[in-house]
């Protein structure tokens, strides 16, 4: 115990010392992205590569800190009415867009009106579920009126930059897809699709003295080994991801920092409950016993992910760590026999080349299910086609992930509630539906944690999703890059980053 106290004391001193380092202003950070940002219109895109750019360009009313706690941002305070139907946000008075125009409540109203307008075709409008009207009683006050209480709304207004406040100028002059104007630390000065995004310091940024960097040059380097080489040779300063199989090599390399944190994300097998075999709960239970999550995680992440049976990672305050299954092929066979398929059956699994790990995972799953008699065909599709087949329900099972999740509502509501927007499996459990609505009405951490504990258990037991693992978010950069930390929500924020060289 004494040793622990001593260690903690030393750590605190170290932390204080590092805080005391004088940050240097100026310079250009050369950062490498793995995927091309798909449109920079925050309300339409759902690509993380786009949000990771926009993280530095837009601000939200409230934000998430490094521990995923909700903190003030453009709104300095907020409250909800007793009935939970009205949320009021009080805005800062000193915020300007990067074109110099002051930001007011009217801009917030414009942003969310556009998002809720069906003509916009926003894929992110579900984040505003329940919001009936957004109004501006005065220049620095915004009110959200809801049809039904939704505690998760606050988290949704922080979850990523799809809910960032935009200036209507960029919509009106047609540059919203390439150069959305926001109030963030940087502004987009150039976007060459498939090639680069250049961010310049926003001279009107409302946080005094920030950002430290003058410029961030984002290069798109798709090949992971080329990205790794570019980092090792110093051609780039920062890489969004590196091949997991070479983590050890990178950790041992001089002058490179590997920054790893568990992400608020999970990989899973999505099961089509309309399939004649898979609609049988015993069959899904059998699959849960037939797969070895440790092997699958090793194959997919080279050991950087945490195998799991429920969605919320153990590092989160909302974690339940519910794990009813074990790797037991004999039991799986017995369950299949009870289900009436002692000789197994045939099914298809659909990974995508967009995420090579899903292809590796599908191969292990194919082999393991084969051992209990389920004959699996792998149908690997490229992204555009995969999206279409998944969206239309043309699959038996698929392998994919959900990312950037914070509140337990994010982990379950849109995916598991009957008829909800991202419920692609056809799952429907009235008890789960009722609890999910209750979770949105209920205030208080403990009360909500108890509600979602039941949801978690039912969804894991019913198994519309067969959860595989929680991935790690791994960024790697040169050691002179300071003031950056990999985050569980996978956001990439350079507002406090500086170069010690």
């Amino acid at each position, binding site marked *: 115990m004494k040793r622990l106290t001593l260690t903690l004391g030393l750590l605190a001193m170290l932390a204080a010392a590092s805080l005391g380092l004088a940050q240097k202003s100026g310079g250009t950070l050369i950062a490498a992205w793995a995927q*091309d940002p*798909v*449109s*920079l219109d925050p309300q*339409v*895109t*759902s*690509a993380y590569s786009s949000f990771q750019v926009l993280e530095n360009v837009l601000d939200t009313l409230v934000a998430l800190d490094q521990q995923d706690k909700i903190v003030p941002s453009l709104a300095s305070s907020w409250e909800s009415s007793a009935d939970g139907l009205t949320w009021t946000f009080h805005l800062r008075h000193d915020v300007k867009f990067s074109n110099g125009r002051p930001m007011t409540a009217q801009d917030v109203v414009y942003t969310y009106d556009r998002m809720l307008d*069906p*003509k*916009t*075709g*926003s*894929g*992110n*409008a*579900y984040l505003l579920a329940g919001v009936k009207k957004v109004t501006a009683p005065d220049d620095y006050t915004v009110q959200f009126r809801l049809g039904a209480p939704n505690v998760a709304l606050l988290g949704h207004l922080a979850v990523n930059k799809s809910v960032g406040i935009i200036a209507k100028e960029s919509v009106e002059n*047609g*540059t*919203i*897809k*390439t150069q959305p104007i926001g109030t963030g630390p940087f502004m987009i000065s150039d*976007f*060459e*699709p*498939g*090639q*680069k995004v250049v961010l310049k310091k926003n001279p009107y940024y409302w946080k005094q003295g920030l950002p430290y960097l003058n410029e961030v040059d984002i*290069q*798109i*380097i*798709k*090949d992971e*080994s*080329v990205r790794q*080489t*570019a980092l*090792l*040779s110093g*051609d780039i300063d920062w890489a969004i991801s590196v091949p997991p199989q070479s983590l050890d090599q990178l950790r041992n390399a001089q002058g490179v920092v590997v920054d790893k944190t568990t992400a608020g994300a999970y990989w899973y097998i999505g099961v089509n409950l309309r399939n004649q075999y898979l609609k049988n709960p015993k069959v899904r239970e059998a699959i849960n016993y037939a797969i070895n999550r440790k092997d699958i995680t090793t194959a997919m992440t080279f050991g950087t992910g945490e195998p799991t049976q429920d969605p919320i990672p153990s590092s989160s305050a909302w974690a339940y760590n519910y794990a009813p299954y074990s790797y037991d092929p004999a039991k799986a066979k017995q369950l299949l026999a009870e289900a009436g398929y002692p000789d197994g059956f045939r099914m298809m699994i659909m990974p995508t080349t967009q995420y090579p790990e899903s292809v590796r995972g599908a191969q292990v799953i194919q082999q393991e299910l084969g051992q209990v008699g389920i004959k699996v065909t792998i149908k690997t599709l*490229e*992204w*555009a*086609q*995969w*999206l*279409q*087949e*998944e*969206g239309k329900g043309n699959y038996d099972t698929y392998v*994919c992930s*959900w990312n950037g999740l914070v509140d337990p509502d994010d982990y379950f509501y849109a995916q598991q509630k009957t008829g909800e*927007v*991202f419920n692609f499996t056809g799952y429907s459990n009235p008890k789960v539906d009722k609890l999910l609505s209750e979770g949105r009405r209920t205030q208080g951490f403990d009360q909500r944690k108890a509600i979602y504990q039941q949801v978690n258990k039912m969804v894991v037991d019913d198994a519309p999703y067969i959860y595989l693992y929680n991935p790690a978010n791994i960024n790697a950069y040169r050691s002179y890059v300071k003031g950056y930390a990999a985050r569980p929500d996978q956001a990439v924020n350079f507002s406090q980053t500086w170069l010690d060289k």
Partner: protein
Amino acid sequence: MSLRYLLQRLGTLLLVLFGVSILTFSIMPLVPGSPARVTLGVQATDASVAALEHQMGLDRPLVTQYWTWVTGIVLHGDFGDSLISGKPITEQVRHRLPATLILAFAALLIGLIIAIPSGIVSALRPGSARDLGVSLMSQIGVSIPDFWLGILLILVFAQYLHWLPSSGYAPISEGLGAYLKHILLPAATAGVISGSIMARFVRSAMMEVLGNDYVRTARAKGLDPRRVIGKHVLRNAAITIVTIVGLQMATLLSSIVVVEIIFAWPGLGSMALNATLQRDYPVLQASVLLFATSFAVINLLTDLSYVLLDPSVEYA
């Protein structure tokens, strides 16, 4: 060569391009997946897909879409805007076309520097150790996949030796040195492979000419061997070699697509691949059209160069 011949060829070129454009336009909607779904990702709902497809103009009849597209190009030289990023395509092409052409030219140059000397050397003494050595090297060159060679060159020259940058592009405004350093590895990747293929054709073309009576006569009368090769053999083998080079350009262009991806080279190839994966129809149509044009122009130039090489050839 008559003007009529030239006009005829240009007319054929236009017809080919028209055919190519019709083909790409009609194949596109048959490919599963849509740019709206790619933009929306896993968060697509039927309503949001429909709203975006309407914004993108994809709910109009195909003929209307084609007409808008063709008139844009013919009347304004405008390829339209990318459906995904909203950027004008013409502006992108203006940057990317030169980058691809220069890369292709540099690769071809490297290829010729490899192919011609090694082809000559092995043709002069068929079956010798040198000939076998060249054959072996060219066999290796032909067999190596371009993506593998590219990564190998990056590992050696960027990661271990730190001589050259690992990827990317430096505009000429950053100085000739930086420009050449960036182009060397990608050009060498494509060049070594096409050089290996061309070396074999140079060898066989040379051997064919070497077997002719007039070569034996030239040698018999005691002409300087270098003059025999330079003046008599190479000149006569040139037509075959030029044909091969012309055909090689097609292979080279497809290899350049891969090379551009590996080296993050901002050319037409990487643009075409991105557009395919994202179902960005107008960008893909523009790239296909430009590649088809380049190939047709190369063919035309190849044919025209016969006249210069062999005065007995004449087009009417």
